[in-house]
């Protein structure tokens, strides 16, 4: 038996459902879902969700695009209920909303673009174990409640609070399934490297989210490479096709290195920084291969760049994360979106209480 929580302090508009109205259908009809059923956000459920944070319900978390609406902790909690979160996930959702709504991450542009990208949420630190996130078998797939609902809650905040809906401000040509949810934890325990959030300036005992503007993951198999050099060559060849085989400098990529590939890098003594440097070295591309028309492909850079060498990715454009099940010499590449000040840069945010 749980004690009924106090719902009197909640400020959101109360919507009466008709006596004969089906709850699930009522959520669809009001436009509050992403196309999948949601949990009706009753005042009791929202009050219980708010026990997951010490923050006041009326505190403003972020200004959410595209309508630039001030979003309170309570509104995030309502959408976390819709998404199916447990109260202990709420601090992760709050951090993800904060990170998404920065000028650096540029959620507005990410939403409005015709490209495939969605906010990919990588979670690090003790909270991933505390709330039971999946960083192992099928880490990027279905089946784990925290992974599934944290990413979904962020998308529902953008939809419901920000007003960002497909076919309206969301102009994606094709979109991708990760726009329902794309959230996973890094496997820190089995990683050959320091956790991603530590590489990005956080303390190991802190928990953090890192948001990346990503398209769908694509598989990268290399089952024979047993040296870091071999694998780096494979990775670089695959990374070269991000956005298009002749696109350079304008897009980032996230590389999710699986445990079997990570073991090779560990045995070769490669740090995360070394891996990124080695990939960058292999992705300095002669202009002659990139100019318009080269390779029978109309796309390309200006012919005046024929005699130059151009890096595939801008400096700092590669993020490397460790996750996945123990079997399979397969890693994943998640292509990014317009990089840097003209578009979006990854943002890391510490998860509070």
């Amino acid at each position: 038996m749980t004690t009924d929580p106090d719902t009197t302090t909640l400020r959101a508009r109360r919507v009466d459902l008709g006596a004969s109205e089906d709850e699930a259908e009522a959520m669809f009809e009001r436009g509050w879902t992403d196309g999948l059923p949601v949990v009706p956000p009753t005042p009791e459920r929202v009050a219980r969700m708010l026990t997951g944070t010490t923050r006041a319900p009326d505190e403003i978390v972020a200004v959410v695009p595209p309508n630039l609406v001030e979003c309170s902790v309570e509104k995030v909690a309502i959408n976390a209920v819709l998404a199916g979160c447990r109260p202990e996930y709420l601090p992760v959702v709050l951090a993800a909303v904060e990170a998404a709504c920065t000028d650096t991450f540029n959620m507005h542009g990410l939403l409005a673009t015709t490209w495939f990208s969605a906010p990919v949420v990588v979670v690090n630190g003790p909270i991933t174990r505390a709330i039971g996130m999946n960083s192992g078998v099928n880490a990027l797939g279905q089946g784990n409640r925290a992974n599934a609902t944290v990413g979904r809650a962020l998308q529902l905040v953008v939809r419901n609070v920000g007003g960002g809906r497909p076919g309206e401000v969301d102009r994606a040509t094709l979109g991708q399934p990760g726009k329902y949810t794309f959230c996973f934890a890094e496997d820190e325990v089995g990683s050959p490297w320091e956790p991603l959030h530590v590489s990005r300036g956080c303390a190991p005992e802190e928990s953090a989210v890192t948001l990346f503007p990503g398209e769908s993951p694509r598989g990268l198999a290399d089952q024979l490479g047993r040296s870091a050099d071999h694998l780096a060559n494979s990775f670089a060849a695959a990374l070269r096709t991000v956005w298009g085989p002749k696109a350079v400098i304008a897009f980032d990529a996230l590389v999710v290195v699986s445990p079997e590939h990570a073991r090779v890098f560990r045995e070769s003594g490669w740090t995360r920084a070394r891996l990124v440097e080695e990939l960058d070295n292999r992705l300095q591309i002669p202009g002659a291969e990139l100019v318009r028309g080269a390779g029978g492909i109309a796309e390309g850079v200006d012919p005046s760049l024929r005699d130059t060498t151009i890096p595939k990715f801008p400096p700092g454009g590669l993020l490397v994360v460790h996750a996945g099940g123990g079997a399979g010499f397969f890693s994943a590449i998640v292509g990014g979106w317009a990089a840097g000040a003209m578009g979006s840069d990854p943002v890391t945010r510490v998860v509070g209480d």
Partner: protein
Amino acid sequence: MARVVLDPTAETAPATRERTPRPAALTGLTVGLLDISKHRGDVFLDRVAEHLTAAGHTVARFRKPTFTKPAPIDLRHEIATKCDVVIEALAD
């Protein structure tokens, strides 16, 4: 028994503002041409500017810093102050 749920939206219908009436003719008006900084948008706007100028209209050119973000408020204000009508070029 009535059931109650809490509204997950911003609870604010977007403020509707009246659009300026469409002018019958461009005579004596200033036409703003807004380049959103997307590839080849300038090609289209250059041509539009040629036509408008040849027809004796006043043209003012503007450019967003990046197509991925909304136009800065100062730019929007400048366009609203200087122009009577605006043509914005998308591209791709």
